């Protein structure tokens, strides 16, 4: 065994792998522990072998940027090691994400909660941008929530450096609903403003509890955006008609945000509208957003420990058998009163029904 292998084996020994938690296209995620302290971690095992020329690009990106970024609101990469032919990333264990929280109808968001999440998102994003890194895949799904309520930006699989002149960047990034118009028009030279648009969409989603600009295709996405915010004019966004994939979409009038966000304060709408400015250069920067009056106005952002948590997070410690069926008594039963009988009863009923089922042709007839 040479020195490198030995060092790798040493590292591997520090982490214990438990059960599988999830599987993505290019990785399997396991729950694990630090052997010495018992601290919970997530181990992301990158599948190697399905790519002809070595490692998957997103794995490389993830390691490359997470090794450098250490911040309260960015997921921490604790270690990297290889096992057999696989690459393993040891990440901080975070049990839920903002999408789960938005979808959990049992939770009520106060304006202060939304403010707190937005502040944490902007802080994490500002840290990426100050280090010249674009995230390029911001969405509620990628904003993870720690057990103490801290929000952490995760999934740097599409991240990229910016601020180097002359290199074209791909416009096929960012999940469609959160993709800014300049990328939809095929711009190959863009900036940190693309992430800000995504944050704006997340901000609106937190208030609406449903995706704000949900287009069905790339074309429809543009239409959805224009329908919500009005078709941009040459004045609003100089030069956008010259962008590579520009096509006229149709004229939609500008409607004030107030019509949709009826309960929002003026500060809130001001920040939201500044995140959703068509002209990327005029879109607010993360650094400036953090100093926006929205964050200083009353109510103060909620302390992270007081933010709403979804039930899945609270019951995550339970084994799976206890999570399905009626065994989980108390809270959930009281919330959703069910009319149907417990499952074991229906089972016996269906057994009876099967016995009485005469319509089925017998093999003899």
């Amino acid at each position, binding site marked *: 065994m040479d020195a490198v292998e030995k060092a790798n084996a040493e590292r591997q020994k520090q982490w214990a792998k438990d059960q599988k938690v999830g599987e993505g296209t290019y990785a399997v995620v396991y729950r694990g522990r630090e052997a010495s302290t018992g601290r919970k971690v997530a181990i992301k095992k990158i599948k190697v072998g399905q790519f002809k020329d070595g490692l998957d690009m997103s794995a490389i990106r993830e390691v490359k940027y997470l*090794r*450098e*970024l*250490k*911040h*309260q609101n960015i997921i921490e990469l604790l270690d990297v090691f290889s096992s057999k032919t696989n690459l393993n990333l040891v990440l901080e264990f975070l049990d839920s994400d903002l999408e789960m929280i938005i979808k959990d109808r049992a939770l009520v968001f106060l304006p*202060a909660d939304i*403010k707190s999440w937005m*502040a944490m998102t902007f*802080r994490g994003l*500002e*840290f990426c941008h*100050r*280090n*010249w890194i674009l995230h390029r895949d911001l969405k509620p799904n990628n904003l993870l929530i720690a057990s103490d309520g801290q929000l952490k930006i995760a999934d740097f699989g599409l991240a990229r450096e*910016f*601020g*180097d*002149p*002359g290199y074209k960047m791909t416009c096929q990034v960012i999940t469609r609903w959160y993709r800014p118009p*300049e990328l939809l028009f095929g*711009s*190959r*030279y*863009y*900036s940190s*403003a*693309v992430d800000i648009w995504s944050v704006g969409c997340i901000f609106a989603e937190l208030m609406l509890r449903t995706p704000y600009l949900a287009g069905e295709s790339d074309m429809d996405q543009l239409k959805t955006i224009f329908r919500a915010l009005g078709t941009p004019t040459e004045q609003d*966004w*100089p*030069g*956008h008609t*010259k*962008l*590579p994939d520009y096509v006229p979409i149709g004229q939609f009038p500008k409607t004030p945000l107030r019509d949709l966000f009826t309960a929002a304060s003026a500060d809130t709408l001001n920040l939201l509208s500044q995140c959703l400015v068509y*002209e*990327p*250069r005029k*879109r607010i920067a993360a*650094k400036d957003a*953090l*100093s926006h009056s929205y*964050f*200083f106005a009353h*109510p*103060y*952002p*909620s*302390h992270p*420990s*007081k933010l709403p948590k979804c039930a899945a997070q609270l019951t995550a410690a339970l084994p799976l058998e206890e999570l399905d069926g009626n065994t989980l*008594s108390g809270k959930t039963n009281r919330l959703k*009163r069910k*009319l*149907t*009988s417990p499952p074991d*009863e229906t089972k016996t009923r269906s057994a009876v029904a099967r016995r009485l089922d005469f319509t089925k042709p017998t093999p003899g007839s």
Partner: protein
Amino acid sequence: MANRMNFLQGKTVRKVIPANASHSRSSSTPQVNGTSATIYGGGVKDPSGRITEYSSEDDQCPVCKSDKYLEKRLRLLVSSCYHKMCESCIDRLFTLGPAPCPICSKVLRKLAFTPQTFEDLGVEKEIAVRRRIAKEFKKRVEDFSNLREFNDYLEDVEDITWNLINDIDPAGTEARITAYREANAALTLLNTQREEAYVLSLRQAEDLERKEKEMRAEEQRREEEEERAERESGKRDIIDRLERADDADAARVVRRTRRERAEREANRKGVAPGKGAQALLRARLAAAAATAAAKDTPHVPFQDNYYAYEDMFVLQPVYVDPTSEAVRKDREGIMRAGGFRVEEAWERALRSAVAGLDLWPLGQESVPNPQPIDQGGDVIMSAA
């Protein structure tokens, strides 16, 4: 029919199969039966033995008349107008949308049926009403200038509750509740939050207490074990010494070892409680700190002073930069429309140049002219 009459008179009825039931089942006559089995009959119980859902052997669906005897799985649910019916009737009547109640013809929905908790539906209703009222009327003594006003308020609330329970002037009562809700929305919200905070603090205190108890038990167990081990080794010690000593010494050896052990035990008893109390105090303090930290604090834009060294460079409007020439030409304004700025590239180069300029190499502490500069982002960037 007799069965029906008994039901209406509120008597409990039970069907009994005669021993020779083979000839005709329909002839089995209902008989009045008032044994304890019907009174303390059934119901779903939670682990502590409390009944969470009431049911009795004499349950009968007033709509389809099926009863517990023939339909073992009969489960009666209560509608929002406080009429009972069985699940299959509910499925049949309300699956296709809201429909009138077969008893009082109030329009009901399938989801508005709830399990029965109390035998007396009057109690069920009163509790539902009181729960609703408690959610709306949340004022406390502190919210009034004197006790008299508070008492008047309580009287009002009780009045409304009574009206709701007994269906006296429902429209007027609802109007009163709405008026109150509108007038006191902010205060209600505040008091709700206060209550939640109180519940949270209670739960934390409970948690703490439980942990303390566990800790104490653990400590005690360990102590006992130690004691046992000590006694064991003491015994062995005596035997060893006795083996070596002659008869005259024996008594003395025993006495001395006993005295030593007594001393040790006394020592331990003196020390142990002190240690336990210390741990207790520490846990308490930690909990107190946690609750204090959970207070909302004003927003702070940055948690470091990364932008403090901004005055270490000046960005010129234009540089001689052959690498970016092609991009800068941008005749059609495509770069501009996409949000790209060549200035960012220059700024990045400058920042990288000045970042960490006054940090000593190899993390040396003795900086001659210490200047606080962000340790987070910069160190990492320069190391990368």
